[in-house]
Structure formats: structure tokens, C-alpha cells
């Protein structure tokens, strides 16, 4: 898993399936970065991930709870059909914004600052 920080936004590059196994790794990485860098917004990039199950929902919801009270937003980008379906069935799209690319999400975050 890789992560990048730009201003107060954290980008998590999901590598491989977002299942229970990888959920634990992403959670640890994200929380470390959030604490270290006063992160407000998180972007999950699914370009290198084709699969997500309910463990992924837990991770995304958990990060949402961390940033929502400071007015942060969570975005998901580069999702394939299978991942999108999990987002929509679980209702995650009600709280998580969907964009095509990291750049799209970054520019929306920049405008709202």
C-alpha cells in the first residue's frame, strides 16, 4: 500500500483487493498519516484494485468518522464496476464522493477550501 500527502489531503493508493487482510494494512497506514500530517481529506484511489468486500466498507466508514467532525471529506476514484456496486449497495455513496481521477478530486477539494 502506498500513500501520499498533499497539503491536508491524504491519497491512499489501494493496491490489490480491499478485503479483511488488506483492510488492516490500509487502516494502520491511513491513521498514521492522518495523525502525522493533520489530514482533513482522504482520497482512496482504486486504480490498482478490482475487488472490495464489507471489510472495505468498515475501513472507509472508519476514516470518514475521523475526518467528518473537522469538515473533511472522503473521495473514491478510479473505481471499476465491481467496486462501485459495493459502494452503491452499501449506501457509501451517500457520504463518500466519487470522481474519475485523483486530479478531479483534488481540484474539487481545492475549490472548497
Amino acid at each position, binding site marked *: 500500500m502506498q500513500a501520499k500527502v498533499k497539503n491536508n489531503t491524504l491519497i491512499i493508493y489501494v493496491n490489490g483487493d480491499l478485503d479483511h487482510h488488506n483492510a488492516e494494512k490500509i487502516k494502520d497506514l491511513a491513521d498514521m498519516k492522518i495523525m502525522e500530517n493533520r489530514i482533513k481529506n482522504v482520497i482512496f484511489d482504486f486504480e490498482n484494485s478490482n475487488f472490495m468486500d464489507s471489510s472495505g466498507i468498515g*475501513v472507509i466508514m472508519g476514516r470518514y468518522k475521523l475526518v467528518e467532525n473537522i469538515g473533511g471529506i472522503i473521495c473514491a476514484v478510479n473505481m471499476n464496476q465491481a467496486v462501485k456496486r459495493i459502494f452503491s449497495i452499501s449506501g457509501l455513496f451517500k457520504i463518500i464522493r466519487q470522481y474519475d481521477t485523483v486530479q478531479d478530486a483534488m481540484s474539487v477539494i481545492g475549490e472548497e477550501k
Partner: protein
Amino acid sequence: METLNVQIESKSENESLARVIVSAFAARLDPTLEEISDIKTAVSEAVTNCVIHGYEEKDGIIFIECTIEENNLTISIKDEGVGIEDIEKARLPMYSTKRDKERSGMGFSFMEIFMDKLTVESELNKGTVVTMIKKIGNIS
């Protein structure tokens, strides 16, 4: 009838292995991409339950049995772990006994949504068997 029997160690690394094995077996029914992703999700949820709940992240064996009969795929996933105290409650959407671990509580709901039929049998301190059936090519 064709069958597949696999035993895997209860480890989170093996969740992806279970998905790949079962979806490769299901491929014999010539499923659509969406059907394959439904099967992968359901298997992932069931195996994750064995790892987290059944064996509570300790050592154990997960038994996977699949059969194909005509165009029906039956997947049975069993653990010999702690068992479920209240199956009805466990199956409720958003219910989880491990909320502190950020579990969404959607595991059984996803098995229900993505498969045609789900049965759960469990006995305390004996284990749990989840059986799921999906008809492949169910377009009409």
C-alpha cells in the same frame, strides 16, 4: 454433478485464495463478470467470518465444499470455531459483535444479496456452516 473440496488454514492471507479457488471452479458454468464478482464477494464474506469470528484470528481449518449441479452452484463454508450465539441477530444488516474493530456488519447481508439462497447452521463451541446457492445464467 461436479464437486470441489478444499481445506485452508484460517488466515487473512487465505481470503483471496478462497475467492480465486471458488471462482475458478464456478467458471465451468460460464458465468458473467458480474456473477463472478457476486461469488467472490459472498465467499470473501463467509471466509472472513470464519477467520474473525469462528476462530477469532487464532489457528484453525476452514472447509470449503462446492458442487455444480446443472447450472446451480452450491458453496458450503465451514469452521469448527466458537459458533454463533444468535444467528437471527447475526444476519441483521449492520449488526456486528466486533464493532470496535470497524466491522461494517454487512457480511451476511452481502451473502444474501449476491447469492440466491443462504442458510446458516451453528452450534456454540462446535462451529458454523454457511451454505449458499446461486443459479448461474439466470437471465430470464
